[in-house]
């Protein structure tokens, strides 16, 4: 029971990170119908920028932890957003109206490029950081086994919930959100009504990159270890989460992220850790075969 609770907490934390990245996949898919394969790398870049900013803040001498985390969050989101914008502008926008696999191939190229770019300028070796936020609550204790909920885990889950609520409001209530939903359904018509479709798409990429950046900050804080390769697997799992939840659906992405996080935590705990990635991929394959619309997605009716 204690072990189960601990894995539940760990899984939810992991799932929050996956969910935030999955939102980026789902929004981009919703609006231009492509898998932004480079999104995992955006998350990786976010994690790097976060660690760099932490290092700079440490150098400058900002001692207050909440202050430092806040600054890092804002700065990382801004700079990572620039990467999101650039990727769309260079690799995807020129391909609108090209044949259907072109954007995906371009995205794969972008992903390889970004990975190696970071490897070249930051080196291939692992980067590490001292844990900044330690401590937490002991929820249960029996027979020497403690179930802890660390402050960091609370922060990650809390921030995820706040962002999730904020985002739903943004998409559901604001002018920008309405324009975005309109572009999702019919770009031509949206353009005819005076919506700058290119701008909305760019904004979608920036927002998605911003959320991935937050996930990157969380990763840096939570694990404290990063390298240029972390985006690949995490990106794939976040994409799995987006598909599982129903691609195009924001709550679906979050739900999918949490499920993938839990599956991974429990799989590692009760089966073999070596095969936890296989478990995540198997979920992807099974969902796509048996329920391609995901848990909360709308079915696509083929138009002939």
């Amino acid at each position: 029971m204690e072990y189960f609770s601990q894995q539940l907490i760990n899984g939810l934390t992991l799932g929050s990170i996956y969910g935030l990245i999955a939102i980026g996949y789902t929004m981009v898919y919703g609006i231009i119908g492509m898998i932004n394969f480079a999104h995992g790398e955006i998350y990786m870049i976010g994690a790097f920028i976060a660690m760099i900013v932490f290092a700079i803040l440490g150098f400058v001498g900002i001692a207050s932890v909440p202050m430092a985390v806040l600054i890092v969050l804002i700065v990382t989101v801004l700079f990572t957003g620039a990467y999101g914008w650039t990727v769309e502008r260079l690799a995807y926008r020129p391909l609108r109206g090209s044949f259907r696999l072109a954007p995906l191939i371009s995205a794969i190229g972008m992903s390889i490029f970004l990975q190696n770019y970071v490897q070249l300028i930051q080196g291939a070796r692992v980067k590490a950081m001292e844990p900044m936020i330690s401590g937490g609550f002991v929820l249960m204790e029996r027979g020497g086994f403690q179930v802890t909920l660390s402050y960091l885990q609370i922060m990650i889950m809390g921030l995820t919930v706040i962002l999730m609520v904020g985002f739903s409001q943004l998409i559901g209530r604001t002018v920008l959100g309405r324009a975005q939903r309109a572009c999702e359904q019919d770009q031509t018509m949206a353009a005819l009504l005076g919506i700058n479709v290119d701008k909305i798409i760019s904004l979608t990429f920036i927002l998605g990159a911003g959320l991935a950046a937050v996930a990157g900050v969380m990763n840096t804080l939570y694990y404290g270890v990063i390298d240029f390769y972390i985006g690949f697997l995490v990106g794939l799992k976040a994409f799995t989460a987006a598909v599982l939840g129903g691609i195009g659906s924001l709550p679906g992405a979050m739900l999918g992220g949490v499920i993938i996080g839990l599956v991974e935590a429990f799989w590692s705990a009760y089966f073999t850790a070596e095969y936890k990635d296989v478990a995540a991929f198997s979920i992807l394959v099974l969902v796509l075969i048996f329920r391609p619309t995901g848990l909360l997605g709308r079915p696509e009716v083929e138009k002939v």
Partner: protein
Amino acid sequence: MTASNAIEKPPINLGATLKEAGIAALIALALALPLAGFRLPDGGGSAFTTRPWWVVVAVVVVFVGRMAFALWRHNRSISHGAGIFDRILSALAPYSRIIFIGFFALVALLPLMPFADRRMVDLGTLVMIYIMLGWGLNIVVGLAGLLDLGYVAFYAVGAYSYTLLAVNFGLSFWQCLPLAGLFAGLFGVLLGFPVLRLRGDYLAIVTLGFGEMVRIILINWSDLTGGSEGITAIPGPSLMGLKFTPTPGAGETAFHQFFSIPFAGIHKLIFLYYIILALALVTHLFSVRIRRLPVGRAWEALREDETACRSLGLNPVLIKLSAFGIGAVLAGFAGSFFATRQGFINPSSFTFIESAIILAIVVLGGMGSQVGVICAALVLILLPELARDFAEFRMLLFGGVMVAIMVWRPRGLLVTRDPSVMLHGFDLPVAGTTQVVPKNSGTNPLLQIEHLTMRFGGLTAIDDLSFAARAGDITAVIGPNGAGKTTVFNCITGFYRPDVGRMCMDHDGGVFLLERMEGYQISATARVARTFQNIRLFPRMTVLENLMVAQHGKLMRASWYSFAGLLGLSRFKNAEARAVADAKIWLERLDLVDVADTEAGTLSYGVQRKIEIGRAMCTRPRLLCLDEPAAGLNPNETQALNKILTDIRDQTGIGILLIEHDMAMVMDISDHIIVLDHGARIADGTPDEIRKNPAVIRAYLGEEDGGHS
């Protein structure tokens, strides 16, 4: 009047260009500042280093580059015509044969040249492995349009199959090679079967997942695969029992002993070189030949339009599976060669990056182009190997090239496509035929629809609809917009599955309940053909090829599912000639002979409509369903269409089911009209009866007191 017809070039707007370049430089600053300007220490600690010059260089390069790009684009924007690359290609085209022979001679003789050293032979071997893999993936991605990101998995299966068979059972390379191909192919079919129904981009991700899963299993199944250490001491290949080793075992003869020459390591390398050359040649000949067979044509058709393929009776899953499986077999061959060349294997040779490199070769070369793969493999494999200092930029280059090619030339460097069959120059020994259906004398109608109901959520698109269509009749389904006409068609042709109802096709081939059949079977066995409201041709295939795809089933059987075709047996050649002759009949009737070898997508709207009708007729249907064939046609074209349709009815005796808004046309040629409104039938009768029917008038014109009943 002056002779000059050049348009005055407007001067470049320097201010705007500077502003754009400034913005680009600003973004470059944002990108470079944290990530390039600071370098984190390896391992841990907070002693980062700063690199201000990196940021400055990045910003300046982007600023200057953006300016240069703007100037280049400004100068280019006036000139028209083909780019420099296309001009070089077309200049080389007449010499392509000489170039090809010269290139082949060079490749074949390379190891025997005096200047050929170990490294050169080894590099040649490496490049050819990638060429072979590229050709294999080209079938999957270039022809069939299935983006396979886990291609390396089949390569791995081939390599491990050979290794395990050779190490554990002592089988020789030549015994293992077919087995390795077989295992990889089986693996491909097993993996492909559940996932090939998925849409293109989902398929890509799933295959990527499969590739990773295979690698994880190879790492963790240590008992069998040796884990991440892999397996070493894999035996090399032998030449008719002659080993390439300085010290052969008891009872064995080594190559150098047999020929009484001193032992040299390069002998083995040269032998390997010729093995992969032979494998690559076989792959090439196979690819070139299969592309011209019905299955190859079906792959390309599927890439162009899967929905249209289903309407022509092609089974998409089976066709995709064949492409997937054949690609896997070729990767399996390449994999077992890789294992025997290396002498050791481990999972790190089979990462996603490997799949990405092979994909980059296919994409860069031009999807579907055999020569393109050679060029791309030479550039992408040779360049980083030759410029060792440059090696760390290799993957950066791969990624950049993939993006650049998609932006600049999305179809790849070499994009020319040879039609798989040409009407002009085809020697037709036989005259074509069309089917003639005996005049319907029986009591059963050709198509009987009973109580058809179809709902989308809360909307009832078709409400308890019953009607019949007879052979030898033109039956028109009319009704206001949104009456459910196209939905009726989509139910009949299997694109939708109705909620309630029975749809029965009855002809001398048998009785078919359409609501129980897969979409492709409705065309293939129930013999119902259709056209689409928004034309769905295979745009990058010629008109004749479009008509040949429609005869796929017949040609597949005649070619013994490609075997007879691959062997070039006369059985297939005759069948193909008959199919071309049959297609030619429709080309003549529809006045399309002149454009037969033109890409369908380049033709005008009215011509494309005719091609679609011809293509549907080439499936030899008993019922032809036409979805607004006159939409967008001018009065003359509509007149011609009327003649075509009445001719089809009178000469072949098949039934025609027609949705049309052009009332003049409907009244002119229909034998029988069904009027729909809000998904229900409101009238049924001859044109004269319909014209006078008050319910029809009400539905079209509305009532004076407003609203529908």
